[in-house]
C-alpha cells in the first residue's frame, strides 16, 4: 500500500437532475474521504449512503459484468465500477450521465432507444426449423466458436453509444453494440437468421451511417470490437449485393468475416 502518497479526500462534481425540482441538469460538488482502492462507483455509493441520499445512479454487480453503471468520467464513457479514483490526478472529477441518451434523473439515462435497436437485430440463435431434442445438441467446433467469440463479450453497457459521434448526430443509427451483436449471431455456425437480421443491419440507418471513427472499440470495457464488426458487415453486405448483380440467385447466407 502506498498510503502515504494517496489523498485522504477527493472532490467530485456530479450531474444532478431531479425533474420535480430542477428545470435543467446542473453540477453538484461533493468532497468525500477516499482510499487507494476506491473506484468511482464506491465514491457514488459513499455519497448516496452518507452524504446525499437523493443522488440516483444505476449499478448492480460492481465487477464489470452487468453493464449497468456506465457514466461519463471527465468526458469519457466508463464503467464506474472499473475505474479507480487514484487514476485521476486532477480534481474535481466530473461525473455525468452517458452522453447521447436522454437524462431521466441524475446519472440515470433513458435507454429505450438502445433496447429497441437491440431487439431489432434479433440477438439470439434463429433456426429455420428446430432440431428435435432426440437428435441432440447443436454442436460447434473450437474454430467455429473462435470465429464469433470476440464479439460475444458485449454486456450492453452502452459506453460505445456514448462514444459514437455518429449516434450522437443521427439518433436513428443502429449503433455499435447492436451491430456487433448482429454480426456475432450471423457468424455463429448454429444460426440461420442472417436474412431476418439483414433489414435492420443493411438499411441506411443500420451500418451505412458508420464512418469508422473507431471510438466504440476504444471505450469498450470488454474488448469487443464493434468497429470491426460494422466494417465487416459493410464488406459482407456489399459483396452479397454485388454478387447478386452477377448471379441474381446467389444471395442468402453470407456471414463473411470480411475479405481476406
Amino acid at each position: 500500500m502506498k498510503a502515504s502518497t494517496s489523498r485522504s479526500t477527493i472532490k467530485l462534481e456530479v450531474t444532478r437532475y431531479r425533474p420535480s425540482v430542477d428545470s435543467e441538469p446542473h453540477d453538484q460538488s461533493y468532497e468525500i474521504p477516499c482510499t487507494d482502492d476506491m473506484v468511482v462507483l464506491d465514491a457514488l455509493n459513499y455519497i448516496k449512503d452518507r452524504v446525499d441520499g437523493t443522488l440516483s445512479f444505476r449499478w448492480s454487480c460492481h465487477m464489470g459484468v452487468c453493464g449497468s453503471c456506465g457514466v461519463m468520467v471527465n468526458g469519457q464513457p466508463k464503467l464506474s465500477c472499473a475505474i479507480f479514483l487514484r487514476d485521476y490526478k486532477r480534481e474535481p472529477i466530473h461525473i455525468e450521465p452517458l452522453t447521447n441518451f436522454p437524462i431521466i434523473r441524475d446519472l440515470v439515462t433513458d435507454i429505450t432507444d438502445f433496447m429497441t435497436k437491440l431487439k431489432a437485430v434479433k440477438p439470439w440463435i434463429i433456426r429455420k426449423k428446430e432440431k428435435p431434442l432426440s437428435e441432440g445438441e447443436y454442436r460447434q467446433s473450437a474454430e467455429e466458436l473462435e470465429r464469433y467469440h470476440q464479439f460475444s463479450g458485449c454486456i450492453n453497457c452502452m459506453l460505445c453509444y456514448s462514444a459514437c459521434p455518429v449516434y450522437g448526430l443521427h439518433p436513428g443509427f443502429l449503433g455499435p453494440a447492436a451491430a456487433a451483436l448482429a454480426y456475432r449471431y450471423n457468424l455463429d455456425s448454429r444460426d440461420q437468421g442472417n436474412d431476418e437480421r439483414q433489414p435492420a443491419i443493411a438499411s441506411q440507418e443500420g451500418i451505412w451511417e458508420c464512418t469508422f471513427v473507431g471510438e466504440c472499440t476504444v471505450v469498450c470495457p470488454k474488448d469487443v470490437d464493434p468497429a470491426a464488426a460494422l466494417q465487416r458487415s459493410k464488406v459482407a453486405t456489399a459483396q452479397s449485393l454485388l454478387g447478386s448483380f452477377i448471379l441474381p440467385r446467389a444471395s442468402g447466407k453470407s456471414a463473411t468475416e470480411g475479405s481476406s
Partner: protein
Amino acid sequence: MRATWWLRNPRYFLFMVREFSSVFVAAFLVLFLLQIRGLRAGAEVYQEYLERLHEPGWIAFHAVAFLFAMYHSLTWFDLTSKIQVVRLGRTVVNRRIVAGLNILAWLVVSGGIFLYWTRG
C-alpha cells in the same frame, strides 16, 4: 450535438484529418488530370503547365498533399488490417503482421511504379 464535436477528443480530430486527406488526394488527381489534358493539347500548353509546377505555391500544395496522402496510406493499412481476417490453417494472423505485409507490398508497388515512371 455540436458541429465542433470533433475538437473534443484527439482521436475524433485525427479521424477528421484522415477523412480530409481525401480532399488533398482528389485535388492532386484533378491537377494530374489537367496536366494530362495539357499533354493532349500539345507541347506548348504542356510546357506552360510544367513550369507552373515549379512555383512555390504549387510546391507547397504538393508537399502538404503528400503528407495527407501518406497519412491516408498508413491509416488505410491500419484500418484494413482491422477488417481483413487472414487465416493460416487454424490460426488467425495477427493484424499487425497483416498491416506490415500490406505496407511492404505498398513499398514494392511504389518502387515498381517509380522505376517504370522515371526510367521507362
